[in-house]
């Protein structure tokens, strides 16, 4: 037997290196699993095809709703930023729970805030990979270019992504607290926000009592802002400011919840037990 003498030099204690390690872990996972890759873009693609045909029907039958074609498809694409972004965070943590790897990862210099950062990096990559084919399909089949929204699109994208990460981290907190028993929440939570996010209709369509609730969500401001760009050709700074401010509050609260859940998992011995 030959003894290992390498690896005795002082380790790198860079947080970026550890975040990169976890991102690499998920890249390897996707590289070796075509079904996971297909799942990334299958649903957004199906959604855009379905809503594209519905939009075409509207355009052919009503001049009043003619403008709705773009609105519906922009809504579908931006809503999927929310959905994919949240799934990207919570399903990436689920991958660690499914493979019973979470405890072992924390027997390393990894910090919980670095795990959260890595989940967001992975989420960003998953969202891009998931939405690019759908955006391309919208352009090829329906001549709808999401980029026509201009610079506002970048703002909408990141505002929605930040909110989706907040929801994703809150779901991760539930997973750390309750284990795989909370798995279903990872898939359904974001849908609970859809009706009051005013994705396909203005906030004023909602009952009066529900409108303040909707306006307390960054997503409702983003979709109002999206309609301002598409229907009136102006960037609504008011909605932008509200969305950004609410994002900061939601993200801060979700991160605090995530860190608290991590500490309770450490206290109750759930990190090494596999999360069941």
């Amino acid at each position, binding site marked *: *037997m*030959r*003894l*290992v*003498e*390498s*690896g*005795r*030099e*002082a*380790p*790198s*204690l*860079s947080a970026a*290196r*550890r975040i*990169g*390690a*976890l991102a*690499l*872990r998920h890249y*390897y*996972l996707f590289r*070796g*699993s075509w079904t996971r890759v297909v799942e990334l873009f299958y649903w957004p693609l199906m959604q855009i095809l379905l809503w594209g045909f519905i939009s075409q029907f509207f355009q052919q039958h009503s001049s009043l709703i003619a403008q709705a074609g773009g609105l519906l498809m922009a809504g579908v694409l931006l809503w999927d930023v929310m959905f994919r972004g949240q799934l990207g965070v919570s399903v990436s943590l689920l*991958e*660690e729970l499914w*493979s*019973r*790897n979470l*405890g*072992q*990862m*924390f*027997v*390393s*210099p*990894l*910090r919980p805030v670095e795990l959260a950062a890595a989940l967001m990096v992975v989420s960003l990559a998953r969202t891009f990979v998931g939405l690019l084919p759908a955006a391309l399909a919208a352009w090829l089949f329906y001549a709808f270019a999401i980029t026509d929204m201009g610079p506002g699109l970048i703002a909408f994208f990141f505002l929605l992504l930040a909110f989706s990460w907040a929801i994703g981290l809150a779901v991760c907190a539930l997973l750390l607290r309750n284990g795989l028993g909370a798995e279903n929440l990872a898939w359904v939570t974001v849908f609970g926000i859809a009706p009051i996010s005013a994705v396909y209709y203005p906030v004023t369509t909602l009952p009066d009592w529900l409108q303040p609730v909707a306006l307390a969500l960054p997503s409702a401001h983003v979709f109002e802002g999206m309609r301002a760009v598409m229907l009136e050709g102006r960037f609504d700074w008011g909605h932008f400011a509200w969305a950004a401010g609410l994002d900061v509050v939601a993200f801060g609260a979700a991160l605090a919840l995530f860190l608290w859940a991590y*500490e309770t998992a*450490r*206290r*109750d*011995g759930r*990190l*090494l037990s*596999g999360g069941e």
Partner: protein
Amino acid sequence: MQTDSPPVEATGLAKRFGKVVAVESVDFRVGPGEVVGLLGGNGAGKTTTMSMLMGVLIPTAGTARVFGVDANRRDPATLARINFSSPYVEMPGRLTVAENLEVYARLFGVRRPAERIRALARDLDLEPLLGRMTRTLSAGQKSRAALAKSLINAPDLLLLDEPTASLDPDTADWIRRYLEDYQAATGAAILLASHNMPEVERLCDEVLIMRAGRIVDRGSPAALIARHGRRTMEEVFLDIARGTGADARLEAQP
């Protein structure tokens, strides 16, 4: 191996889960280069004790110091010097062995991951397995891959929870021999939880025997065997587990 505070120093370490006492006020030390065995039946508190040393479990009372630093602080520089292996904690099955080792090398801040993985693969006969999905490995192959992961950062303190459980005698012996050589070459300290008494006799300088969360006896394997008037650690373990040891026999006399 850096010369500094002892690798492990547990003082009054305790853990309760609600009303269940998992570990009750244990004190022990693992010195530089020592191999210490942690024995006890299922539920005796071995894994709980190790978890507190690794900082993945918060103690209810007492402190666990690793290289002089409170394990509960989860200091990255200290965590980079320890590692862990257990058959009950797995690596992601859908990654290849090489991919898993690379991810862990980067998590531990290993400077030249590829070189380190090549060296470990050569030493642990893992070269033919590097490209295989981890979930397709046999139990013995998984154990060798897990050992490679636990040595990826050339740890100064190695925590092993039943490293040879469910392995055939040949593979188990191979792993014990490798651990002996690694310890001799690097001077690393090892804390070994095991149910395999010949393994404990062979590897350990000192043994801590736990029952119901307490350390009920301790000493070198030879000293324990002599004190209990037995021939093997297996007999000592059974005496303590069943309460039929020399002490118990003396107590039972009128």
